[in-house]
């Protein structure tokens, strides 16, 4: 029921009197009552264009059918969505949409998730009365990542409105008139903005095609998992689509508190290093590869023989993994923990409010919650000084980022001052030279657990594929095995189980568990004011 203070409007939908918050459009209001009116040009994140006309319904206030995306509900308004007038209007639009549209669904990347295809099944004719030659429009590259297949374009202008309103870059426009009109760019100005990939997502047909995904997979064959983008500390909600266990595409997932419907191209295309030939895929010692149990034995041996162990964490680790590192560090006396941060990138804010953070990692905030907020500051300086003065012999360092330089030159130089180095890395790199043990690290999209975004939002990231022919145990499993071998853990738990342990000992997470995080995350509310995670930008 609507809030008492919110004014409501009583109107009639398909003969039934209904009530909605005043000011809603017919399309939105009908949807609240389970009546889905088809649309092409309407997108909740964009302005109303009202050009596709498929959402026409019959109204008692107009002699002609009205478009439900633009007309608003009013007291006494009577709307029919299934009357002869409404159905005929809808079918008319479908017929018009299809007459010049190519029947190339078998080779179209949008096939299977195409709005035109879906509406064609529900509202379209089963045969064409159109025997003329179809119109030909251009197929060309609009930018480094996107091409237009003009014949498929239904000129809904979602993409041009996106570039006008959301990215604010206005590269796309409609050229020509009538049934020759098609999306294009201005000469010499390709579409190359940081949000360009979203235009492909919102294209209701296969007119805008992403070079990255072209001919890669049939969408109905892919598996989908909700996750979080690890590209920066915004924590954009995403859907990871995999085929036969391989990532094919990242898509933004709607979350009005974080990323609306969008994601940036940096995050969208930032997963190729997962398939790099340079990945570290198995544990190894100085004498060669080690299997799982021998690597743990070697690890324990080093810990047992080290008077003082230091840990260098990274902001890619999940809260659960960090909790395990924390526990491991706590089990040996006199240990030191510090964290390293990747170099700051470029931050951006777009006209519609979408933001890209300068912090190119997902969980600095979470690490600060688990270890206290000095972990990347004072603790890190302290650790660096200890390394410099040679008081640390053994260090365990993590690098889950995409950089082959690991934690960067400064830290790499400091690390070699510890004689025994146990290094977790996603990619091979010079910083691994001379390590006592090297372990494969999991990258974002391979981790199961939680991250805390720069806005203090606790969100779940999911493991969407496992690298390597024989998958290696990730940090979550490996650190628990170490604890078992050390006798500090009785049984191995899932990420949810570790989170429960974390929530019991770490105040900011108290009272939460994996299942109540849900698909859109939750705010960690009880932080003292002024202790923000930001400050990096």
């Amino acid at each position: 029921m609507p809030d008492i203070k919110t004014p409501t409007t009583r109107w009639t939908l398909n003969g039934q009197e209904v009530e909605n918050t005043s000011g809603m459009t017919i399309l939105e209001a009908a949807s609240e009552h389970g009546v889905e009116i088809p649309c092409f040009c309407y997108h909740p994140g964009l302005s109303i264009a009202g050009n596709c006309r498929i959402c026409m319904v019959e109204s008692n206030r107009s002699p002609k059918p009205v478009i439900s995306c633009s007309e608003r509900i009013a007291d006494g308004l009577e709307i029919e969505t299934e009357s002869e007038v409404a159905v005929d209007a809808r079918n008319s639009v479908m017929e018009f949409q299809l007459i010049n549209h190519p029947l190339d669904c078998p080779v179209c990347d949008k096939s299977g998730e195409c709005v035109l295809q879906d509406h064609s099944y529900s509202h379209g004719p089963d045969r064409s009365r159109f025997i003329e030659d179809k119109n030909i429009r251009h197929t060309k590259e609009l930018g480094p990542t996107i091409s237009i297949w003009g014949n498929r374009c239904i000129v809904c202008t979602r993409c041009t409105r996106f570039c006008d309103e959301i990215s604010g870059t206005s590269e796309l426009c409609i050229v020509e008139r009538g049934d020759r009109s098609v999306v294009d760019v201005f000469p010499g100005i390709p579409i190359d903005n940081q949000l360009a990939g979203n235009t492909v997502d919102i294209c209701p047909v296969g007119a805008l095609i992403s070079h990255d995904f072209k001919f890669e997979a049939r969408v109905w064959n892919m598996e989908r998992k909700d996750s979080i983008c690890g590209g920066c500390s915004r924590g954009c909600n995403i859907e990871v689509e995999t085929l036969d266990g391989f990532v094919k595409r990242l898509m933004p997932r709607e979350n009005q508190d974080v990323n609306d419907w969008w994601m940036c191209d940096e995050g969208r295309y930032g997963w190729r290093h997962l398939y790099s030939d340079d990945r570290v895929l198995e544990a190894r010692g100085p004498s060669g590869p080690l299997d799982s149990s021998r690597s743990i034995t070697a690890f324990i041996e080093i810990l047992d023989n080290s008077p003082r162990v230091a840990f260098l964490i990274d902001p890619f680790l999940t809260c659960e993994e960090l909790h395990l590192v924390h526990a491991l560090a706590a089990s040996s006396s006199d240990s030191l923990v510090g964290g390293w941060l990747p170099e700051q990138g470029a931050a951006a804010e777009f006209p519609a409010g979408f933001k890209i953070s300068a912090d190119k990692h997902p969980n600095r905030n979470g690490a600060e919650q688990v270890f206290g907020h000095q972990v990347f500051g004072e603790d890190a300086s302290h650790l660096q000084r200890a390394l410099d003065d040679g008081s640390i012999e053994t260090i365990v360092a993590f690098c889950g980022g995409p950089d082959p330089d690991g934690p960067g030159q400064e830290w790499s130089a400091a690390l070699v001052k510890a004689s025994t180095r146990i290094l977790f890395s996603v990619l091979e790199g010079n910083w691994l030279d001379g390590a006592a043990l090297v372990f494969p690290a999991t990258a974002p999209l391979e981790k199961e657990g939680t991250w805390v975004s720069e806005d203090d939002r606790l969100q779940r990231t999911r493991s969407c594929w496992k690298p390597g022919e024989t998958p290696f145990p990730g940090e979550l499993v490996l650190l628990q095995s170490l604890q078992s071998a050390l006798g500090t853990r009785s049984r191995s738990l899932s990420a949810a189980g570790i989170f429960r342990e974390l929530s019991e000992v770490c105040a900011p997470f108290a009272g939460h568990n994996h299942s109540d995080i849900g698909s859109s995350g939750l705010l960690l509310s009880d932080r003292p004011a002024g202790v923000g995670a930001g400050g990096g930008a």
Partner: protein
Amino acid sequence: MAFRKIFTQHIQKKTCHTMAFYKQHGGYEQAKAALSKRKKPDTLIDLVKASNLRGRGGAGFPTGVKWGFVPKTTDKPKYLVVNADESEPGTFKDRLIMEKNPHLLLEGILICCKAVGIETAYIYIRGEFVFATERLQKAIDEAYDAGFLGNNALGSGQRIDVTVHRGAGAYICGEETGMLTSLEGDRGNPKLKPPFPAIEGVFGCPTVVNNVETLANLPYILEIGADAYRAIGPENSPGPKLFCVSGHVENPGTFELPMGVPLRTLIDKHAGGVWKGRKLKAVIPGGSSAHVLTADECDVAMDIESLAAAGTMLGSAGVIVMDETTCMVDAMLNVMRFYHHESCGQCTPCREGTGWLAKITHRIAHGEGRMEDLDLIQDVCDRMVGKTICALADAAAFPAESIVKKFKSDFESAIQNGGSPAWKKRHPSVVGGAASHA
């Protein structure tokens, strides 16, 4: 009272377009009276309402009522946009006013600006009207020099600026909201209504959009009063009117006559009758967007109500006359190509429908028609009418459905005999049609 011409009275005179000539013949007297401080704007609006002046652009909306929709108190500037795009095929009346009588338009603009409280007026003129633009600009310069326009227009203390803006040759920019979008600097796509221009028009501000001929009526209404004006022609759509007659007549041209003149009189008396002694076949009475009339239906008065009752419209009063030798298939192809070319392409039914109609008509004309195409044309028209943002889809469908319905035998003949006569004449070797789809 004898009918007095107000637009074309002096157009034969060489200097008719100058301010001196215009003033000599009583010009700007009405604007001076209207702009005097004692005159209340509302009395002007009431006068125009009482005169029953209907818009001359095509839709025939009551001008005074339209002015009344503009908010009286608003913190935004208000604009007048004069529609001088005159893009409707068969129409050439506004051009005559602007070329021969530009000060009449300027006087009308002054009166409108006073009535609605407007300081800035734009004249959106069709780009091809180079000569009209020059004449108009010259007249505006004269008016500024004389202090009739500018910061203290006619000494009234009110600022009234007039700017001429040239279009770039799109039919759709004659549509009221398409014109406003174009004026704003965007591609001239019509806008969703509501909001209507009177509330949110050009640059998001309240805007009056009036046709050239509409505004040019205003000085005369002020001069003779609402009652006398209403007595010219039918009471509900009165006034002097410019009729443009083109096509197969002996004496084509623009004729100023009282509203409600019989169509037959217009063609036979004023336009010299159908040419070459031939018989009348068809007439489009109000620009190419109107339903066509057969020769038998031409006993009709040329005013808004009478033509609506006859199933067509006065529109822009562009009367296109076709003689008995006209093949209506070719005529329709001509019209359909135009709408296909000019549809802006934003609404699906219009974008696809205009192209489809043009292709079907083309196919019939070229000897590849099928009998079922005639029903298909009707059906496509039904599916276009009333389903788009602006009326361009209607404008394409109205002539199409009426031509096919009223001149079915021409189409049947083209389908059965391998194409339209004109096409067969041009392509004697392929008569019988190319590979048929049927």
